[in-house]
């Protein structure tokens, strides 16, 4: 036991690094986090989340929110952060946070969708796949 504790102290940094990466991998598989972020070293293992698209349907209007777009009522910096967060980590919590800011009138439902590009290399067709959708 004493030896194990000694080894843990000796390799504290790589062990901590391993735990962070393992936690990131867990979030990727269970909560929809992109492989590119969160300290799991999954860069270049899937398409970058900046290519994802966020579409909203509200009061009969369907439109895309780009990450360089400013959302009314919050700063440009916060808008960018929020949209990138929705793209990189499209879970219910982050989508709801965006819905809360975008929804001006409680009487109308808002739908937020995150779409991911997909290439079929056998025939070079390009399409989009729905990754996550919520209606609030």
């Amino acid at each position, binding site marked *: 036991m004493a030896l194990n504790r000694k080894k843990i102290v000796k390799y504290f*940094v790589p062990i901590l690094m391993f735990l962070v990466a393992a936690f990131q991998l867990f979030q990727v598989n269970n909560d929809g986090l992109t*492989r590119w972020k969160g300290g*799991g070293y999954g860069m270049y293992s899937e398409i970058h989340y900046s290519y994802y698209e966020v579409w909203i349907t509200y009061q009969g209007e369907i439109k895309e929110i780009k990450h360089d777009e400013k959302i009314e009522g919050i700063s440009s910096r916060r808008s960018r952060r929020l949209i990138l967060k929705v793209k990189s980590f499209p879970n219910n919590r982050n989508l709801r946070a965006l819905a809360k800011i975008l929804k001006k009138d409680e009487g109308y439902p808002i739908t937020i969708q995150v779409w991911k590009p997909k290439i079929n290399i056998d025939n070079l067709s390009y399409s989009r796949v729905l990754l996550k959708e919520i209606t609030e």
Partner: protein
Amino acid sequence: MKKLLQNLNLIDISTKALSLIFFIYIFKSDFPHRRFSIFFLLIIIFSLFFNQKILSKIVFWVSSIIILSIDLTTNWYRVANHHFVLFFCCLLFFFVLRQPKHKQQDYLQNNGRSILLVLLFFASIQKLLSPTFIDGSFVGQYLTSGGFFQLILSKIESCQNYIASNRTIITEFNSQVPNATESIQLNGNPKIISTISLIYTYSILIFESLVFYVFLRVKNLNIRHYFLIGLIIAVFISRLECGFLSLLCFLGITQCNEKQSNFKLIYIFLITLFSALIVLNVGFH
């Protein structure tokens, strides 16, 4: 230069290399604690030119860990993976300097190797577990619409035109309301693209896993360095990931023994090159 490197011990060279990488990181980062960072930047410049002993003080590395911790905790899901590596490298230095003098080198070498192993292990595992990587579509996407080999492809006009034509098609398609049943046809020969994509996909996976295996099992230190430098060059040609590559070079330095001045020289040259590219806004930091 070679003699100078032989005289410098591993801790000294690693300290300087890591502080240079940290300096570039602060210089290029846009995190909110800018004033504090500028103060820190001045300390590093002063230490590098006038009093290098400051770099071997624990307080220097504790401060760097604090700065990086603030950055990581406030931007956990925003910062790139190599920012985590930089944090762990600085944390490692804190522990190295707490060791007795005669144990510092061994401690740095063992932990540097373990950091490299964790990094390579997860980089390979993530690729293996990613369906879009394994079926070649991730590489296919970058080959058809740009992203890889920009240094080389930017010089070939036909490739530029091919990528630009596909980007136009994609942009036009993406401007429409998404529908899962709709698709468009990209330019190019599917047979050629899919063959190149699959070959490149599996080359990346095999080479990365091989470097992991070499660092895990192969005892010959020279072979380890050949593989690591091979990986650094391969990544550099594919994508100018200068920030990540300079950290790989730092980890390479930690694996050098007294006789391996040539490798130290190569890593220092590469760190300098990548740092210069970052300052000149070439590639990614």
